[in-house]
């Protein structure tokens, strides 16, 4: 789905201090941060980081404070000048641009959303959103029209003439987002954009970002210190520690295959049910086919497999319903042959991408397993209660 690399970061390094050249050569010799600090007095902000962000994905850089993540995002648009290494956007080497062309990239290609919103208090909401276009010297009419469009996207069109301090935190950050979107950039850099918000508002904003992203397909680099947030919105996550990316992968890869102790410790407290999807815990579905198999086949198969119910599909493998062993046995005794009339049509079902926690309630009350269907309603698997419990304990998940 995501193929093209939109942003490419290669051996990107930021060293703070006076003797950066010396520190850089020590770094390439593989000396540790502490040794370099001792020898040169320089601190390493970002240490030879490599990654690619694919077009249209949300790439989350996640790390605790001091891990260098805020520096890293600023190296991408050169709000902080890298010490060495390069950043490419669409193949253009950002790190080699002269000031004027860099300004152009910032104006048209990359916008930024800030942790503390950084709205201009002396400008109205509309003027804030229009700021980027004003900087590009666009005509007043055009910039206000585009700014209104951006405000509409985040649902704040009625607040255009208010001042930022009159809005709540969540609304202010929507303005921040609208301001970034008004330029219609390809790339959004979001620096802890939701970290200053209340938990509930934060979740709303995440949902809204995902919803907007579904429509706009921007390439987003998102910084956060909140693992839950990273897992929720990230297509891929880079975990940062001490200026390096220690693991890079999809949320599930990070959770299931932490490649060192640091990541392991990090993911220990994670609520697995929010990350693991139905498709990862489902088991092979046993089914009979309507119009081909009869009641007797159904009962026999249930007996052989030790099941109390079995799903029924049509010839295209589409889920039709389920039949219980009890009903099948009763039907055979009374001499009925009509399978369809015995069908339980209202069976619990879910799609492949549903996170486990949304299935808890269903799993608790249902007497038959939960059917997992794809977008064409074809039966792909079943989820039994035991599988959910096993997944939550960190076991029993199918590895990719």
């Amino acid at each position: 789905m995501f193929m093209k690399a939109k942003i490419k970061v290669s051996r990107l390094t930021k060293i703070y201090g006076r003797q950066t050249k010396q520190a850089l050569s020590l770094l390439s010799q593989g000396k540790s941060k502490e040794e370099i600090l001792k020898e040169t007095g320089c601190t390493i902000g970002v240490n030879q980081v490599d990654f690619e962000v694919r077009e249209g994905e949300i790439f989350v850089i996640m790390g605790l404070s001091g891990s260098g993540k805020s520096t890293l995002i600023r190296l991408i648009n050169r709000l902080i000048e890298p010490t060495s290494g390069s950043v490419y956007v669409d193949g253009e080497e950002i790190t080699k641009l002269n000031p004027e062309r860099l300004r152009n990239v910032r104006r048209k290609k990359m916008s930024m959303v800030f942790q503390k919103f950084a709205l201009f208090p002396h400008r109205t909401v509309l003027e804030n959103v229009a700021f980027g276009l004003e900087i590009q010297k666009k005509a007043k009419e055009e910039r206000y029209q585009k700014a209104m469009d951006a405000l509409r996207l985040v649902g704040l069109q009625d607040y255009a003439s208010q001042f930022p301090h009159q809005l709540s935190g969540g609304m202010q950050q929507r303005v921040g987002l609208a301001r970034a979107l008004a330029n219609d950039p390809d790339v959004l850099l979001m620096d802890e954009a939701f970290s200053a918000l209340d938990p509930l508002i934060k979740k709303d904003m995440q949902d809204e970002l995902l919803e907007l992203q579904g429509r706009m397909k921007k390439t987003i680099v998102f910084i956060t210190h909140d693992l839950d947030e990273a897992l929720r919105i990230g297509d891929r996550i880079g975990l940062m520690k001490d200026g390096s990316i220690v693991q890079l992968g999809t949320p599930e890869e990070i959770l299931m295959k932490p490649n060192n102790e640091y990541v392991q410790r990090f993911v220990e407290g994670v609520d697995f049910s929010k990350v693991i999807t139905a498709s990862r815990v489902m088991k092979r579905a046993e089914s009979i086919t309507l119009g081909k198999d009869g009641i007797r086949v159904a009962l026999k198969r249930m007996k052989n497999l030790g099941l109390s119910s079995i799903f029924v599909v049509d010839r295209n493998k589409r889920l039709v319903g389920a039949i219980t062993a009890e009903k099948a046995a009763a039907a055979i005794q009374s001499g009925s042959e009509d399978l369809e009339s015995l069908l339980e049509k209202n069976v619990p079902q879910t799609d492949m991408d549903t996170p486990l926690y949304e299935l808890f309630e269903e799993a608790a009350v249902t007497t038959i397993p939960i059917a997992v269907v794809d977008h064409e309603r074809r039966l792909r698997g079943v989820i039994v209660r035991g599988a959910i419990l096993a997944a939550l304990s960190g076991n029993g998940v199918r590895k990719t």
Partner: protein
Amino acid sequence: MIQDFIENHKLPVGETAEWLVDVIKSFPGLLNGIRSVILWIYTGFESFFLFFPPWLLIIIIATIAYWSAKKVNLGLLTLLGLLLIWNLGYWENMIYTLSLVLSSALAAILVGIPLGIWTAKSKIMYRIVTPVLDFMQTMPAFVYLIPVVTFFSIGEVPGIIASFIFAMPPTVRLTTLGIQQVPAELVEAANAFGTTSVQQLFKVEIPLAKKTIMAGINQTIMLALSMVVIASMVGAKGLGRDIFIAVSQIQVKIGVEAGLCIVILAILLDRITQSFGNREPKLNK
């Protein structure tokens, strides 16, 4: 031994100053240029204010005062204060003084704001300008009269220039402060959207520093007003001269009346410039 050494080797501080004055005097073209510009500004103000009959000017200024803060009290205060000055017979002298104050304040603002911005942006400038401003403000203002008179002889111009030197520091200082106080994250946000340094200054920094800069301008005007008596010693017309005469001839009547006029003028200038500075109430968080 040490005493002898110190007492017999006087450092040529005063001599250096004299030498410097001579050097500057050797550029008569430059000095004449400055002189004509200042005079042009001053006579501009003077003839503008004297163009109106007093009653009309009083109404205009009172209206501006009211409009600056949308407060009836301030408009009324201005009206009564100016009427009193007119009534006491000091109208023309007040106009001379006002023109003197506004000319020196204008010059101080025109030089002070750019200098303040530069000082905020450059560490080296900050290190140079800060002690110079301290010097300008603490050196007794009379001292400025001496070189200024040698450069510009007597009259309004040397008075204005001495006031300008004495009154400029607050504008520079508060402009610097205001620009430095603009939150770094807002400057960063502006940069992230691709502002040039000029756009950053005019669209973000100056608007956000405006209140502080206005406070500096207010202080500058007040300091310029405090210089009017000193300026009259080198021949500037106005209320300052009245007071100077009153002091030298021990005339209580003139002294009190002219002094009262200066107080009124000071209060009005202070209130009006303050209300211009506080104009965007929406900005108050």
